[in-house]
């Protein structure tokens, strides 16, 4: 199983019946493929839709219906369309239960940086700042390292997207929860030792007494 699939499958386990969920572009979107049987959730696309379906097949394309990544998508029976003000009312107002998004950096205080690399990449924050401030649960889904360097830090070095907002980090190596005491490792992947994880993580880690070993065939 490739690392991204490991991450997407694990994130999907967090979804609960009836939740409204917003998935960021890229890896976070993959989680929709792995929702457990019997779990029914609603996806939001912040450009103006709840009840978003899948990417449209050629014969399903409606030029007026795109997701926040610009792809043509379908809308489910339970869906509805809204303008941007209402869409972000749902977000800022705490009506979105879970937001899953990627990060450039995240730190042990739950700070998140994912919108700008000064002088290099200035795409803008889009809806990300509102999403992480407004959603009830913020899950960062990303590869543990970039170019061999830990993306999980003691303190973010890039300009923040928001302060103290991340609840959970899911990487191919581990699942970590941001707690008042610091970053608590609750699950570690098959074939990874605690020592290796600590080695690959710049942030201080607290290892849970109830650490779960994630076996790849069961996630």
């Amino acid at each position, binding site marked *: 199983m490739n690392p991204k699939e490991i991450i997407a499958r694990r994130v999907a386990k967090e979804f609960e019946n009836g939740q409204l969920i917003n998935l960021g572009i890229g890896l976070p979107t993959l989680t929709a493929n792995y929702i457990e049987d019997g779990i029914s959730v609603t996806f939001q*696309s*912040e*450009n*103006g*839709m709840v009840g978003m379906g899948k990417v449209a097949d050629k014969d399903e394309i*409606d*030029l*007026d*219906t*795109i997701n*926040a990544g*610009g792809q043509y998508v379908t*809308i489910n029976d339970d869906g509805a*369309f*809204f*303008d*941007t*003000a209402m869409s*972000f009312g749902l*977000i*800022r107002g705490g009506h979105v239960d879970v937001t899953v998004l990627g990060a450039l950096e995240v730190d042990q205080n739950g700070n998140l940086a994912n919108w*700008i690399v000064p002088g290099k*990449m*200035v*795409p*803008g*924050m*889009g*809806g*990300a*700042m*509102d999403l992480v*401030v*407004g959603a009830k649960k913020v899950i960062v889904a990303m590869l543990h390292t970039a170019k061999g360097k830990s993306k999980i830090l003691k303190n973010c070095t890039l*300009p*923040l*997207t*928001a*302060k*103290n907002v991340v609840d959970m980090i899911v990487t191919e190596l581990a699942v970590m929860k941001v707690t008042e005491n610091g970053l608590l490792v609750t699950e570690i992947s098959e074939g990874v030792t605690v020592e290796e994880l600590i080695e690959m993580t710049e942030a201080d880690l607290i290892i849970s007494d109830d650490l779960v070993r994630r076996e790849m065939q069961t996630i």
Partner: protein
Amino acid sequence: MNKVISLEKLKDIFKDDMTIMIGGFLGCGTGEKLIDALIQSDVKNLTIIGNDTSFVDRGIGRLIVNNQVKKVIASHIGTNAQTGQLMNEGKLEVELSPQGTLIERVRAGGFGLGGILTPTGVGTLVEENKEKISINNKEYLLEHPLRADVALVKGSIVDEFGNTMYKGTTKNFNPMIAMASDIVIVEAEEFVNTGEINKEMIMTPGVVVDYIVKEAN
């Protein structure tokens, strides 16, 4: 009161240095005929307010490429490389505003509010030069309203009076910019007689619409 105007006549409305709000999200819900008219008018030094700068060959993106824009206020510019390049060259000023904040600023401008308090952006670069206000021990940024000289709106169905409905995700910024601009121009994908749009679907009342462009897409 005939609000229908030709693309040719429309050019008389556009002036250098104007602030123009443009509906659309990555070009979906942007009136491309209105962009055509703006490009043909060749007015310069525009301030453009919209969600994003779309792609180089679509919507707001085309105005950027045509060097008509002095400043952009948007939430995202990552899909149009030209925006970033002109910014880096110092030829284009970019003000980035979180998407939810940006639409509330436009709404405040159109709804007569002096500002809004949002938790979004607290503790980030966005809070620079902004007043912070604490309400019930939570910090909020005071964000100011936005208004424009002209709004370029794309309507899916527009009636003679200007009543407008927006299909699917084309709504995005369109209903709010129609409230926040001195002159409101709607490009009608479909143009119908007054009264033919289901009244429960109208998001923009004709009373705020000044001009309708009914050339088919």
